[in-house]
């Protein structure tokens, strides 16, 4: 019973709490930079869990994946985001369409919902319920962020959170997909973000604001 085992046990048992924490903080975050930091923290937690799972299940490739996750989601993407924020020189606030209090309550409701949703499948799939619940909660939060935040950047972030959720779900239920697929998915995410970056620049250049709720020329 080495230290590592204990650590993994702790991680696996308690990470979902941290995730919920990040969620609650994310929805009240006022500044984009805060949100980004929270996101990277979230990704870090997930990385930890990847490694823990890999260690417990004795999955060699899990370490590779963990490394990838860390590299991309904890380091690369946040940095890219910060660069973006600097280069875009836009006001740093997130322009929420809901007040922080509402957001918190909605987020709490969603967490509860996710538990409720997962409950039925919990037994049938035989996975740690709170893990799956956390995943679903992440998905919902991502969706919520995308719908309620007017800033293009925040929408991207929301998408990432959503992605995180899906990934987490995959991880907890199936200990991850075949390696090639994982890599492909990460690759896609990266390219996607790159493109979104390009588009944010274009939006900034053509509309000189980043408020997607104002992009309403095409309708009907």
């Amino acid at each position, binding site marked *: 019973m080495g230290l590592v085992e204990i650590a993994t046990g702790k991680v696996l048992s308690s990470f979902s709490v941290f995730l919920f924490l990040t969620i609650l903080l994310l929805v009240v975050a006022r500044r984009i930079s805060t949100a980004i930091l929270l996101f990277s923290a979230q990704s870090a937690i997930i990385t930890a869990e990847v490694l823990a799972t890999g260690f417990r299940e004795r999955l060699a490739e899990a370490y590779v994946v963990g490394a990838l996750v860390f590299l991309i989601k904890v380091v690369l993407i946040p940095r890219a985001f910060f660069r973006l924020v600097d280069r875009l020189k836009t006001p740093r606030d997130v322009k929420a369409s809901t007040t922080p209090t509402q957001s918190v309550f909605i987020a709490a409701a969603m967490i509860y919902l996710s538990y409720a949703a997962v409950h*039925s*499948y919990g037994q*049938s*799939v035989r996975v740690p319920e709170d893990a799956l619940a956390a995943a679903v909660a992440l*998905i919902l939060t991502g*969706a919520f962020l*995308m719908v309620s935040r007017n800033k*293009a950047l925040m*929408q991207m972030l929301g*998408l990432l959170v*959503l*992605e995180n959720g*899906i990934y987490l*779900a*995959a991880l907890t*239920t*199936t200990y991850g*997909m*075949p390696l*090639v*697929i994982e890599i*492909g*998915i990460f*690759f*896609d995410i990266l*390219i*996607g973000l790159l*493109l*979104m970056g*390009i*588009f944010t620049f*274009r*939006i900034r250049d*053509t*509309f000189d604001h980043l408020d*997607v709720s104002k*992009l309403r*020329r*095409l309708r*009907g």
Partner: protein
Amino acid sequence: MILLLPLAVTILGAGFVLCFRNPRIATRVALTVGGLEVASLGAVVWRVHAHGALQAGRYLRADGLSSLFLINIAFISALVLVYASGYLRHMGEGRFSSPRWFYALVFLFLFTMISVCLSANLGLLWIMMEGTTLASALLVGFYNTEGAVEAGWKYLMVCTVGIAFALFGTIVLYLAAVKAGMNPAAALDWAALMNAVPQMGFDPNLVKLAFVFIIVGYGTKIGFVPMHSWLPDAHAEAPTPISALLSAVLLNCAMYALIRYDAIISHTTTSAFAHTLLLVFGLLSMIVAGLLILVQRNLKRLMAYSSVEHMGIIAIGLGLGGPLGLFGALLHIFNHSVAKSLLFFSAGNIRQNFGTLRMDGVTGMARTLPQTSTALVVGSLAIVGLPPFSLFVSEFAILSEAFSQAHYVLAVLFLVVLSVVFGGFAYHFIRLLCGEPNGVPANSKLIPSEYTVMGIASVTLLCFGAHIPHMFTIILQEAMAVLR
């Protein structure tokens, strides 16, 4: 190994085209690459036709269904490339917006779509599907105008989100497979799944969950109502060849993915659920799109909605299943692609000649642009499903399937929507074609590339309406065999 050929051609071609700054040369190169791509696809199809399903490594496979879609891709992409060669002739050199970039991105786009149809692994399928979004997003925003950027952003966001759900669906199916005791390595291979699903009892709840996410996810890409919102914007704002590619190939590729999943679960108890879902989405899309067609002002938006409507028709065909339904659906995929690209081509000419796509801005086309308006009339007659054009045949098949399965309500609604759509088209296009000509077209004569393309498309429509070639019917049979 032959499966790698088209992929290699397209991806290398994409890189290769980028090397030529001179638009004219770039165009020539693009055309040659296109020719190669079509040839290689033809080879693949032929091999499939000759030796049945092909396998290349663990991740690539082609069978009857794939070859049907490959034919579609080959045909449309050929048309589009030729058309584009004429369409882009006035385009200068700009950052990301120059012929070479255009062609490079188009080939990338084609690459992703071909690999969607060739991938043997659902994960890979998903990756490539996401890839199509990414490859085409820049093309949608190609013009860099306000509208283009906005449309591009929406396209990117909406489709990525949708696709993300599709990923979740994939994962759930994978989970179900693994839980049912499949080897995780093979648990994403659709062939293996199709064999496995009937024998080992998958958890029906999980399968249903998977299909819900899949249909919402890929449905976003297909353009099912209410996930269709990106579609009109993207089609309207993209350069015309791209609009054609989007609605004639991309939607079909998404449909292909859906069909794959449908085929996998078609032998389980879940298939009934899946088919009901397909019918619901199909009917919803038909009705909403059909109504929206009535009140459109922009030509290409109108066509986009009609694409939504036709995707709905195809979905209904699939949902009905049965020999006639599947036949109709698969045939309709091809027919719709041809007719729709023809329509988009003529729309492109209109835009180039009058500088607008607002339908109230153009009248009396019949006099000023005789050839284009002929193409427009042919295309629209075909798209509303009137004989002697091929869409009549496929819709006829689907409809008769609906009636013979005694889905009377569905069938009647189907008919009503068709009439409404007909009304919309007739209303808009009569006003477009007749009346006093306003505005002088820039160049009323078509250049060879344009009229060859349009001619080919129209003739194809007519031929398939009169009699479906033997070769094609065989391929259809093979495709249907996959689904049963």
